[in-house]
């Protein structure tokens, strides 16, 4: 179980200090959680705080009851937290095979590595020896990024907007990947997403807006209101949108 207690974060910008997250309290059990909400609402910041990439100004993060607030990225990774970047990193010289091997944390065969790539819809043999650099398209890099998380058996896997940069055709395939992961890993999957189809497979939806927790609940509770936003004016998002301005 992942627990966030009173997490706050602020950053300097031209106009001074901006509060990005305000006192977030959230308990995430073994389940498939989707964090959604308007752009600039603090979703990616929250994800990075969980992975240890950003240190919160205040608050506490607990993993299975253990305080991990002061642990480094590496220590958290070793405790079973994985993070898939929204914008995958390029590496000159490291191949897809190298990266997946590092993710697995042990020597893995070509077949095993290929298996992870196939799961994200890449024809593995074509990619395994390619360098992870700009010769790959954005969508390809994104899928490789997701494959690196698949290769780790994690307690908590965080995906920052996995749909960004992936074409519609492969998207259905990707949802199956997440569903399969959910069943097999037994861990927690946290996805930051705006995609209705991802929201639809969530056990729980968390709405973040203006740096605050707007709502949390099952998809039956949250989804009708979210999807009705355009017609009826969803209160949750309308409030967030107002504050974002």
């Amino acid at each position, binding site marked *: 179980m992942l627990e966030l207690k009173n997490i706050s974060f602020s950053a300097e910008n031209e106009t001074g200090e901006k509060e990005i997250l305000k006192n977030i309290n959230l308990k995430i059990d073994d389940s498939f959680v989707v964090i959604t909400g308007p752009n600039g609402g603090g979703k990616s910041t929250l994800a990075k705080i969980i992975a240890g990439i950003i240190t919160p100004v205040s608050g506490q993060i607990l993993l299975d009851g253990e305080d991990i607030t002061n642990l480094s990225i590496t220590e958290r990774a070793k405790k079973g937290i994985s*993070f898939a*970047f929204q914008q995958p990193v390029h*590496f*000159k*010289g490291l191949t897809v095979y*190298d990266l997946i091997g*590092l993710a697995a*944390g042990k020597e893995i065969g070509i077949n095993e590595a290929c298996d992870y790539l196939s799961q994200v819809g890449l024809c593995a043999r074509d990619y395994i020896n390619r360098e992870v650099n700009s010769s790959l398209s954005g969508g390809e890099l994104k899928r490789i990024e997701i494959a690196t998380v698949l290769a780790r058996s994690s307690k908590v896997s965080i995906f920052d907007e996995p749909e960004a940069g992936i074409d519609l055709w492969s998207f259905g395939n990707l949802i199956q990947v997440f569903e399969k992961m959910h069943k097999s890993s037994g861990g927690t999957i946290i996805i930051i997403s705006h995609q209705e189809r991802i929201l639809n497979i969530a056990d729980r939806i968390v709405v973040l807006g203006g740096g605050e927790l707007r709502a949390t609940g099952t998809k039956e509770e949250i989804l009708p209101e979210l999807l009705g936003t355009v017609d009826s004016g969803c209160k949750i998002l309308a409030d967030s949108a107002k504050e974002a301005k």
Partner: protein
Amino acid sequence: MNSTELELLQIIADMNASPEGAYNIRANGQLADRHVTENIDIRTKTDSPGIDIIIKPETKGETVHIPVIISETGLNDLVYNDFIIGENADVTIVAGCGIHNCGEKESRHDGIHTFFVGKNAKVKYIEKHYGEGDGNGENNMNPTTVINIAEGGYMEMDTAQIKGIDSTKRVTKARLSDGAALVIRERIMTHGRQTAETDFTVDLDGKNSGANVISRSVARDNSYQRFFSKINGNNLCSGHTECDAIIMDNAKVSAIPEIAANSIDASLIHEAAIGKIAGDQLIKLMTLGLTEKQAEEQIINGFLK
């Protein structure tokens, strides 16, 4: 040969005492072992130190190893090796120099390699430089490579200097005829107070000749690297030079790529980049469970692979 020497052989030439194909092993300034084949002859020069490697036309798929090892301290070794590669041959040449210097004096190897690549011949040339030692003696190497490629010939040169060479000045000069092509890949890593200078000059004289010079290097500690490359486009030709360096600690790197078009049909590109390891690369690998140090090593190893 003793175990130190065998170990050096393995590192620089990936070979055991008696590899397949033709070979010439030079140890401490002397011929240690030689083997020739029907198609590949190796002869000791009579006018200067060094050897001639003569590869018959149409020789296909053969390999020549010509490693040099130095395990005595204070040895100053200079050789001139000429490679004559016959028409339509397709061969691999593995050269390399390993120094194990346990003493207090400078050990030094200067090799001057001259290639004559025949018409439509194909050569892959692999060269490794490596030094080690537990003494204070310096390991210095100054390899010079002169390349002449005849019509339609092709040469690929992979050169690496990964460890332990205190000072090196590497000079490579190439001249290409019609339809000839040259690819050079250089990898250098310097530590401590080492200095490495590298200097490429390529003359694209022939019509439809082409050259690609790629250098990747990592400079650590207080080391210094200087990369210089010049491609002269003297005809309808294409040339590309690229220098990419990772700088760490207090190291210094300077890159001076030059392209000169002396013909309206010359198409030349140069690229040079120097920078430290990107923070997001480290973070990504750390999210996979690597420590910062391990992440750094992986990035460097990949970069120099």
